C-alpha cells in the first residue's frame, strides 16, 4: 500500500513556447518543474534526450532555452536549509532568488555579497552564468562567495564541488551555462551590512576619458561603481557618462530619520508595462532625447547622495516587464569586455560605430572589472560595456562587426546576454574552452546537458 512506483516521481511536462528575457529567440520545449529532489532525479535520468536547467528565465538570449528538447525549471526547489548568523553562511537550494535573500536577510543585517542588476534571478542561474555586480572590481563575481555546491550530473549522482573537492568540475560549472549538470544546493557567504542604504555619489563625466579617470579614482574609495553612458553622444562628448558610486551606509552616515529604522525600506509600488509598446516607440529620436535629458538632469560634477538599495542596485526592477518596451519583436543585449590596455581604444571604437550606425542603445552601462577564475567566466580585468538594441533589420550583421572589433583587441562577449554570437568567434574569445570541454566530458560523457546556446556556439562537440 505504501509502495511508490517510479512513474509517480516523474512529473508531467508542460509543452510550451519559451524565450529568454530579451524575448528573442523563441523556442519550443517540454518544460518540467520538479517540486522534490526525487522528481528532478527522475527528469535528469529519464532518458538520454537533451536537457537544460532554467532558473528565473532572466538570461537574455538562449542560455536557458532548449528548442525541441527538454527544459527543467528549478524555481520550486528554493528551500533555505541553514543559516549561521555568526559567519553569514547560508546553505540553500539553487532555486532561491536574490530577491528572497534580501527579503529574508536584509532585516537581519545581511545582503547578498554580489548582485546583478536585477534581483529576480536564481542563485543556480547566477553560478551558471557567473554573474557580476557593481562591486566586481573589488569583490569579483557571486560565485566567488560560494564556498561549495552540490551538482546533479547526468548519471543522477550528486557531487559536492568546491575549490578543494571536484575542483575542476567546480571551475567548469561556474560560468558553465548549466552544461555540466544541475546545481541543487549551495553554500553562500552573505555580507554583513548596517543599513539598507548606500552612501555615495553621482559623478558627471563629460567624455570617455573623464569617465575612465573617474572610475580609476572612484574604485579605490567605493565598493560599488557603475556608469550610465550616453551612446548617442559624439565627437568631444563621446562616451559622456554619469557614474553612480557607493558603499553600504554605516549607521553614523545615515540621516536621523533613516537611522531609526536602518534595515527597513519603504515598499514602493512597482508599475508595469501592461502591453507590448509599438515598434516605433523606441527610435533614434526618443532614445537620443532620453539620454540627453538624463545627462542634463545630473548637473553637478559630483553630488553626495543617500540611495536606498532598490534604487541603487535595481532601477529596472521597479518596472516589471520592462522588456516589453521593445515590443513584440524583442531585443538583443550586448555586453563585452576588453583587457585594461585595450579598454579605452575599444570603447572609443565601439561607441563611434554605434554613433555612426544611428542605432541608439536605450540603456548603456559602463563598468570596470577585476579578476575572475571560472573556465568560461565572462569577466576579466578591464572595462565592460553593456548595450541593448531593439531587434531590427540589419542588427545581427551590425553586431557581427562589433564582435570583430572586440575580438581583435582580446575582448569577449557575455554568454548570459547573448543570442547571436557565432561559434567561430566564441571559440576565439574563450581561450579555456578546451579545458572546459574536458571537464564537461568527464561529468557528462553523453552530452545530456545541452541548450540552444551550446548548440549554436558548438560548445560541446558530439
Amino acid at each position: 500500500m505504501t509502495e511508490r512506483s517510479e512513474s509517480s516521481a516523474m512529473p508531467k511536462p508542460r509543452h510550451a513556447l519559451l524565450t529568454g528575457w530579451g524575448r528573442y529567440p523563441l523556442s519550443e520545449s517540454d518544460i518540467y518543474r520538479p517540486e522534490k529532489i526525487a522528481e528532478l532525479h527522475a527528469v535528469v535520468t529519464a532518458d538520454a534526450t537533451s536537457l537544460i536547467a532554467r532558473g528565473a528565465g532572466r538570461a537574455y538570449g538562449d542560455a536557458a532555452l532548449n528548442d525541441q528538447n527538454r527544459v527543467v525549471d528549478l524555481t520550486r526547489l528554493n528551500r533555505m536549509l541553514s543559516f549561521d548568523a555568526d559567519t553569514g553562511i547560508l546553505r540553500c537550494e539553487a532555486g532561491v532568488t536574490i530577491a528572497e535573500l534580501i527579503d529574508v536577510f536584509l532585516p537581519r543585517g545581511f545582503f547578498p555579497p554580489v548582485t546583478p542588476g536585477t534581483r529576480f534571478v536564481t542563485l543556480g542561474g547566477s553560478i551558471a552564468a557567473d554573474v557580476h555586480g557593481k562591486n566586481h572590481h573589488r569583490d569579483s563575481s557571486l560565485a566567488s562567495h560560494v564556498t561549495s555546491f552540490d551538482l546533479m550530473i547526468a548519471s543522477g549522482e550528486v557531487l559536492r564541488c568546491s575549490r578543494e573537492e571536484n575542483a575542476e568540475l567546480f571551475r567548469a560549472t561556474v560560468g558553465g551555462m548549466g552544461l555540466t549538470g544541475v546545481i541543487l544546493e549551495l553554500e553562500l557567504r552573505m555580507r554583513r551590512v548596517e543599513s539598507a542604504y548606500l552612501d555615495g555619489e553621482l559623478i558627471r563625466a563629460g567624455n570617455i576619458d573623464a569617465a575612465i579617470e573617474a572610475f580609476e579614482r572612484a574604485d579605490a574609495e567605493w565598493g560599488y561603481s557603475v556608469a550610465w553612458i550616453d551612446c548617442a553622444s559624439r565627437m568631444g562628448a563621446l562616451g559622456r557618462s554619469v557614474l553612480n558610486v557607493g558603499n553600504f551606509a554605516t549607521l553614523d552616515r545615515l540621516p536621523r530619520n533613516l537611522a531609526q529604522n536602518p534595515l527597513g525600506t519603504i515598499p514602493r509600488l512597482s508599475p508595469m508595462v501592461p502591453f507590448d509598446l509599438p515598434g516605433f516607440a523606441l527610435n533614434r529620436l526618443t532614445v537620443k532625447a532620453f539620454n540627453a535629458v538624463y545627462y542634463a538632469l545630473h548637473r553637478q560634477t559630483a553630488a553626495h547622495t543617500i540611495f536606498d538599495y532598490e534604487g541603487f542596485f535595481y532601477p529596472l526592477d521597479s518596472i516589471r516587464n520592462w522588456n516589453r518596451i521593445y515590443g513584440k519583436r524583442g531585443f538583443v543585449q550586448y555586453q563585452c569586455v576588453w583587457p585594461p590596455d585595450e579598454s579605452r581604444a575599444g570603447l572609443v571604437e565601439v561607441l563611434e560605430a554605434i554613433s555612426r550606425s544611428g542605432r541608439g542603445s536605450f540603456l548603456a552601462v559602463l563598468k570596470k572589472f577585476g579578476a575572475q577564475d571560472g573556465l568560461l567566466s565572462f569577466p576579466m580585468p578591464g572595462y565592460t560595456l553593456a548595450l541593448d538594441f531593439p531587434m531590427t533589420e540589419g542588427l545581427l550583421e551590425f553586431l557581427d562587426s562589433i564582435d570583430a572589433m572586440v575580438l581583435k583587441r582580446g575582448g569577449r562577449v557575455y554568454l548570459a546576454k547573448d543570442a547571436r554570437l557565432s561559434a567561430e568567434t566564441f571559440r576565439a574569445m574563450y581561450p579555456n574552452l578546451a579545458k572546459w570541454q574536458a571537464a564537461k566530458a568527464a561529468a557528462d560523457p553523453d552530452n545530456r546537458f545541452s541548450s540552444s546556446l551550446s548548440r549554436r556556439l558548438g560548445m560541446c562537440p558530439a
Partner: protein
Amino acid sequence: MTKVLILGATSPIARALALRFASDGARLYLAARDGDEVRRVAEDVSVRAGATALSGTFDASDFASHDEFIRHAAGQLGGLDGVVVCFGTLGDEDAAQTDPGAALATINQNFTGAVSLITLAARHLEQQLSGFIIVIGSVAGERGRARNYVYGSAKGALAIFAQGLRGRLAASGVHVMTVKLGTVDTRMTWGREGALLTIAPAKAADLIYAAYRRRAEVVYTPWFWRFIMGAIRLIPESRFKRLSF
C-alpha cells in the same frame, strides 16, 4: 504559543501556509511521507521565520500507525492546538477507473487516512476545549466529473466529514474550517490544458491563513469558485454527464 501539526507539509501550499503560521509565532511540527523532503521544508521554514520547525514522517494509508504518530507529534510540540490537513494526491486517475487497488489507494490517501488522523487529533482538542482543524479540500469534491471522480469523491466525502465534525465540536469550542481550493499552480495542474484561474501557492496560503484568522467555516479559495461551482451544480445531470472537462 500556538502548537500546530501540518500533515502533508511538502506540498507547495502547505509549505507557504507553514511559513505564515511560523511568522506569526506558531510552533510547528511538519509531517509528510518523504522524510528528506519534509526535513528540507522544515529547515526552510526555520531559516525564513527565524524559529525552529520540527519535522517527521507519517503514512496516511498506514492506519495502525496513526495513534502513535499523533501522540508523538503532540509530545514533540509539547501540546497540540491545531491540525492542518494538506495531504492528498490526484493519484493515477486512469488506473483508478479500472483498477480497484488504485481507486482505493486514492480514497485512502485523500479520505480514509484523513478521517483516521483527524479523529485522533480531534480527541486531543476536544478534551482541552479549544483548538482548530483546517481541512484542505477541493472544488473537485463538489460534483463528480468523468475525469477525476475518484479523487473528487474522496474530497467530497472529506468535506461532509468535516461538516459533521464541525457540528459535533462546536460545543467544545474547537474550530473546524473546510477549504474548497480551486486550481493552484502546483505539480497537480502543471502541464494541464486549460488550467485557467490558477493562483500561486503563496496566494492560496495567504487566503487560507486570512480565513483561519477570521474563523471562517467553509471557504472557497479564491472566493469566485463559490459562484463557479454554484453554476456547475445547476447544470442538469443529463447534460453534465456529456461535458468533457
